[in-house]
């Protein structure tokens, strides 16, 4: 079982919502669609689910062309961001509904529903209606409906976005186990880079209706192919600057450092350098030693981490570090960048080093 998109596009009223996309999604791990709101995650899911028609290209499931197949016949499951359940039915009937439509025997339905309810701790709620449940329970009911049905593909469209922090963590830890060993292709849309990293598997980065990079989650985090991918897969936003590379040195503003490694071999010229916030520290150490001084604009201190937004004349950068570090707003502060963690992108946005 694999889900393949071949040259899929989608237009609405002359506007391109999905640019030509080719992807091969496989079972056994999470396939995360990561991108900000409006980047086309939901549009892509709707195309895969058959709720929208693609303008061109084809969709294959298990090698079979399903482009023209109706949603009903694709044997899939979908969980929305909003808690969608059938309001006039009990939790039991909600979970059982896709099985009943498929014409499954009553005794088997009973077993499947109870199994799904056990996994999602819904056993005591089986005879309540959705509106009598909390938000987390409602979403668990929707998830139970998705796992009770043995579908070819499961689409989770930001299923945790409307849950509170605590529930979100709890359910996110459970998610990989829920779908492990079911043989379905699991597609998970999210706008949070952290969530993609926690879920692992593979990630497709989306920006403006286009998949900019697809691969093993950890791998594409470490090796963004272009500047857009680096920006999509970074929270807080990745720090960028236009640098001039002259000989073995890189220069922007008052920052000037000696290059090492592959970057030395770049032809001289202008590049965009990008470095993640956690590689710009408010103190100097063995790895982070290139001084980037700026005026502190905003400082946020959480229990274990400190972040500071600072201005270096042209660029606004963010520093993220462990521990609590005091910053005085409006004052110059010395920050230190790790030169080995810098990505270099050429003028076309493609990764140079």
């Amino acid at each position: 079982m694999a889900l393949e998109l071949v040259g899929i596009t989608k237009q609405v009223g002359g506007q391109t919502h999905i640019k030509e996309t080719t992807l091969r999604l496989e079972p056994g791990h999470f396939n995360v669609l990561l991108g900000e709101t409006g980047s086309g995650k939901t549009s892509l899911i709707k195309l895969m689910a058959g709720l929208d028609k693609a303008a061109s290209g084809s969709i294959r499931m298990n090698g079979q062309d399903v482009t023209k197949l109706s949603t009903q016949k694709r044997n899939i499951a979908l969980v929305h961001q909003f808690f969608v359940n059938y309001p006039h039915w009990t939790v039991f009937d909600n979970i059982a509904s896709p099985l009943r439509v498929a014409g499954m025997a009553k005794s088997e339905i009973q077993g499947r529903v109870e199994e799904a309810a056990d996994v999602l701790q819904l056993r005591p709620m089986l005879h309540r209606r959705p509106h009598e449940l909390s938000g987390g329970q409602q979403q668990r009911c929707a998830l139970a409906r998705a796992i009770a049905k043995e579908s070819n593909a499961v689409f989770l469209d930001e299923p945790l976005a409307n849950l509170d922090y605590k529930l979100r963590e709890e359910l996110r830890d459970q998610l990989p186990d829920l779908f492990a060993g079911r043989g379905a292709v699991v597609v998970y849309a999210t706008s949070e880079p952290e969530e993609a990293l926690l879920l692992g598997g593979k990630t497709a980065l989306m920006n403006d209706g286009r998949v900019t990079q697809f691969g093993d989650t950890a791998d594409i985090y470490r090796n963004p192919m272009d500047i857009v991918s680096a920006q999509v897969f970074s929270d807080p936003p990745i720090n960028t600057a236009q640098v001039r590379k002259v000989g073995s040195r890189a220069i922007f503003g008052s920052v000037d450092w000696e290059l090492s490694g592959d970057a030395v071999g770049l032809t001289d010229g202008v590049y965009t350098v990008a470095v993640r916030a956690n590689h710009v520290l408010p103190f100097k150490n063995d790895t982070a030693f290139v001084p980037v001084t700026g005026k502190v604009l905003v400082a946020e201190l959480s229990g274990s981490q400190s972040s500071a937004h600072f201005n270096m004349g042209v660029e606004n950068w963010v520093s993220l570090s462990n521990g609590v570090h005091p910053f005085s707003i409006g004052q110059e502060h010395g920050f230190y960048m790790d030169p080995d963690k810098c990505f270099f992108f050429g003028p076309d946005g493609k990764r140079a080093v």
Partner: protein
Amino acid sequence: MQKRHILPIVYILFLMLPIYWLIAMSFKTTGEILSGFSLFPQELTLDNYRVIFTDPTWYWGYFNSIAYVTINTVISITVALPAAYAFSRYRFLGDKQLFFWLLTNRMAPAAVFALPFFQLYSAVGLFDTYLAVALAHCLFNIPLSVWILEGFMGGVPKELDETAFVDGYSFPRFFATIFIPAIKSGVGVAAFFCFMFSWVELLLAKTLTAVAAKPIAATMTKTASSAGYELGLLAAAGTLTIIPGAIVIYFVRNYIAKGFAMGRV
């Protein structure tokens, strides 16, 4: 009793006065009604009701009215449900204009349509049938129902439809077993308004019927008979005419409050 209760009580009494007067009249003899002012029936009589329940021209009036009102409500809701779904779920060329045009059908008085309907129905042999009145009332009730139902459907997220299709529901099955139950209060409100309009409408009902389908309201317009004025009888007929409306309102009162909250009633 507290002071703040006085005003509402006075107001309600004021509203109830004509209804009380009607009911009181229905238990009086015509002689007493014509003889002067009396707050209560001096000699209580059930003769007026006896006449209505025994004279076929009277009680058939009720049957006729109930028949075409029911047919009309069923047709209106059946037609309006898919129409409202289309307006609520799809964007198509001229959708907003069409929706507004539907509403404009309610802007013309019924008298405008009485003549064309009369001629048309006479020509096709529908004159003096239940269907004639039921269809004529659709002209007003379908737009109203579409408007009310569209409002309720707008409150149901589109994701519910998508979830059902993904779960394997065909469109008709989804519509009947999931969607309609989800907007059942809207169906109740729309049906109530169809019922009320059709029940009280006189002009079209009277124009399009003669004997076989003559509604109760038309029967009531014959104020004089060979025995002179029969005001008591008319009052009894009027009282009986209020009852079905009162029963329907009792059942849908909560839904109507919901409809008001959604701004569609």
